[in-house]
């Protein structure tokens, strides 16, 4: 992977070289095996990618089990305060939060396994619930990005001309803003008033708000390279053949061109999930993402930052979890990319 050092701003989309359309022989692959089956074979051979993918999966499963852990092991909820409570750890009685406001560190027992935060809440419980929220936002935001970016790329690249110009300039407009600043601006505004779509409204502290924001701000980062591919594909013979057979624009776009950019979209998905999780953490850290009382890894880091010298666990634990999750999905994503298109020259483009 070659990294472009002149990259102007953060963000991660991957620009793939336009693929050659899948020909009859290629569709069947080597020895009659389809391209996706072939990619799966290649992926299976990439043990590192699989190991990191498995690590990510374990994190997802752990987070899904948060309610079980909270109810049966920690016996609390993610937002229950225990500020003036006391706990007994190995025969020693401790304040959950000291009179000076410093929370207890990890107890390595069922209750307060990873310690407490300033409000006397169980960090382990919040970590798992926070993971659920971070991952949920990551997945929903990626779905939004993928759907919108694909539609924009198909329309823009297929129709060209005025439609392409208008859509591309609109994407440029979004691209012109640094992702975090745009996210903070939208997040702050929407956290107060929520979103009103007429038929339904989204409350300001709903997880859908950061998911929508992240999903939308990343659209240009994915639609731009896809549009380039569509521009190339629309000139290919199989598209002309389809048109000659009387196929309409929509059919050509979704039945002929879309399958040919599908592998690029699949490559994007894990990388977009990783970026969405990171951006969610950044926005939540800045108070513009997940709103209390919902925890997220970003809000947990933000809450703990002022206590670093005396309660380092408050930042280290969610920070470590964030690193592991993003690393897991990123390395797995690289493996998927290698498997789907081992010849692609991939560069990080911002």
């Amino acid at each position: 992977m070659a990294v472009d050092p002149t990259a102007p701003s953060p963000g991660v989309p991957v620009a793939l070289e336009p693929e050659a359309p899948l020909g009859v022989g290629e569709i069947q692959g080597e020895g009659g095996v389809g391209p996706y089956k072939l990619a799966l074979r290649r992926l299976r051979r990439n043990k590192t990618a699989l190991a990191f993918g498995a690590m990510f999966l374990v994190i997802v499963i752990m987070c899904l089990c948060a309610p079980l852990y909270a109810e049966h092991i920690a016996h609390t909820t993610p937002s229950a305060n225990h500020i003036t409570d006391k706990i007994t750890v190995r025969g020693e009685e401790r304040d959950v939060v000291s009179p000076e406001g410093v929370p207890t560190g990890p107890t390595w027992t069922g209750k307060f396994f990873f310690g407490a935060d300033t409000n006397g809440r169980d960090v382990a419980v919040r970590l798992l619930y926070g993971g659920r929220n971070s991952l949920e936002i990551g997945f929903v935001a990626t779905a939004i990005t993928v759907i919108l970016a694909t539609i924009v790329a198909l329309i823009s690249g297929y129709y060209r001309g005025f439609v392409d110009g208008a859509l591309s300039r609109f994407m440029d407009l979004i691209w012109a803003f640094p992702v975090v600043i745009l996210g903070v601006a939208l997040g702050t505004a929407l956290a107060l008033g929520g979103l009103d779509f007429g038929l339904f409204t989204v409350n300001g502290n709903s997880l859908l708000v950061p998911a929508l924001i992240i999903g939308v701000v990343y659209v240009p980062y994915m639609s731009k390279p896809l549009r380039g591919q569509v521009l190339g594909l629309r000139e290919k013979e199989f598209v002309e053949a389809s048109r000659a057979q009387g196929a309409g624009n929509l059919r050509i776009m979704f039945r002929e061109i879309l399958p040919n950019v599908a592998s690029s979209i699949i490559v994007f998905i894990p990388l977009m999930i990783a970026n969405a999780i990171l951006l969610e953490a950044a926005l939540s850290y800045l108070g513009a993402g997940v709103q209390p009382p919902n925890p997220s890894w970003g809000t947990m880091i933000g809450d703990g930052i002022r206590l670093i010298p005396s309660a380092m666990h408050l930042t280290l634990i969610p920070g470590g979890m964030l690193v592991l999750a993003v690393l897991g999905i990123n390395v797995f994503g690289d493996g998927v990319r290698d498997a789907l298109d081992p010849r692609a020259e991939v560069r990080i483009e911002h």
Partner: protein
Amino acid sequence: MRKLTQVLVLGVAAGIAALGLAACGGGGDNGGGGSEGGTATVLMGTAPDYLDPQEEYTTQGAEATWISYTPLVTYKHENAPGGNTVIPGLATALPQISQDGKTYTETLRKNLVFSDGTPIKASDVACTFERMIKVNWGGKSFFTDNVEGATDFDEGKSDHISGVTADDNTGQITIKLVKPYGAFTNVLAFPEMGVVPCGTPEHTLTTDLPPSSGPYMLTDIVPNKSFSVVKNPKWASNNVPDIPLGHLDKIDVKIESNTQTEAQQVLNNQADNFDAGDTVPPSLVQQVRSQASDRFAAVTIPSTFYFFMNTTIPPFNNELARQAVNVAIDRPALQRLASGFLTPECFFLPEGVTGHPDSPCPYGAADGNGDLDKAKQMVQQSGTAGQSITVWGEQRAPRTQYVEYYADLLNKLGYKATPKLISDTTYFPTIGNAKTMPQTGFADWIQDFPNPVDFYLLLTTSSIQPVNNENFGNVSDPTIDSTVKKLEPTPTADLDSVADQWTTLDEYTAKKAYVVVYGSEAVPKFFSDRIDFDSAQVHPTYLNDWSTWQLK
């Protein structure tokens, strides 16, 4: 040889006498145990909103301006309770108040000069009032609501305030009020009434400030970064008693937004003061208390921290529901969230303000952990259980944590509470807008001046406004309204005569559970080893009094 000895003895004696005189420093001084002169460095976490004497409205701004610009009357440069006492400033005495309580007469001291040597005249005082209105000081309504013609002047209908007359020959200033307002002497003591010369531009000044009329002058201002406070060379000649001449030659103030760094530098003696308006990071509180026990103290200031409850909408239009919250509140928990910088209280008037009750709290001891079971029963009885509540709060530690605790408490009581946290810069305008109609949330009040009226303006019907409302709970109680109306005209100097009536009112307010008071804020008095800790005063309203500081 004998002659030489006599000369030496006389010389040593003269030297000791000279040193002694220098140490005394002149009239009106506090005369602490430290030395004279020198420079100190203050680190401030938040920059003053303004250094313009007529425009600042934060403690950081007031710390700088109230020792640089002196009003007609001011406060004793002492800790509480002495610091709550109004004393003459540039005026010869406290104002003479007419029988009907509507005319205040003051006389300027003779031969006063600004720091540039220009004489201070009575007309400068009138110009100062007008400038305060023109630059749109945030608290100008204290003046415009009460002084005849001030509103017309504010609205551009007149060139001068008709209710203010100044005679430069006699030095007399007369102020006519539209109605008797007992706290008007306190209004005259605001640092924003600190006198500046006529002709000072009537717009915000940032770096080039008018000449000083106090013991110090503000110089070398780099907005939001630093400024210096140096001694006014002309102040001593003004002979104003009870206002210190100042000990330090210079105080360098630097803005250090990272309070962790700020506290660490003072702890390591790399800077001399951690600004009292800042919060010591919880991670360092223990270390500061143990390593700097002889140069650190938490000083409680007259302030009320509370959760307001909207009395006009469910569920808190139900008195039993409000009482339940008061029963359940765990004030020591909130004290821990404040890292100990909160003194648990249950009455609206804080300790140190006339009328603060000494009686027991009506719904459980102030330092008790609350009775959750009893409160749950009360919520059930009130029929409000299960209702949704939005709890408003600021995105600023520890206020965010207060609100998260409070929302959790309401959930434990049987409500469906969700915190709504917004930026601290937009918080009060948002909840003070009638369209927001907040159900409940965080609120605080730090005294503008030591008078119960200053607190009760938050709970009267007349203070309910469509925008910038400060009666967040829309409390409208005829008993509160009539009592405040009756007691409001009592002059500041006579407050003690009506203290019992204020106490009765405050006990009534606590019983009606209009708000959930949980404490008074404490501020850090935190210095380096270089400063004489005992001589440094923390004023109950303007916090650090730099004019009292001395090097050891």
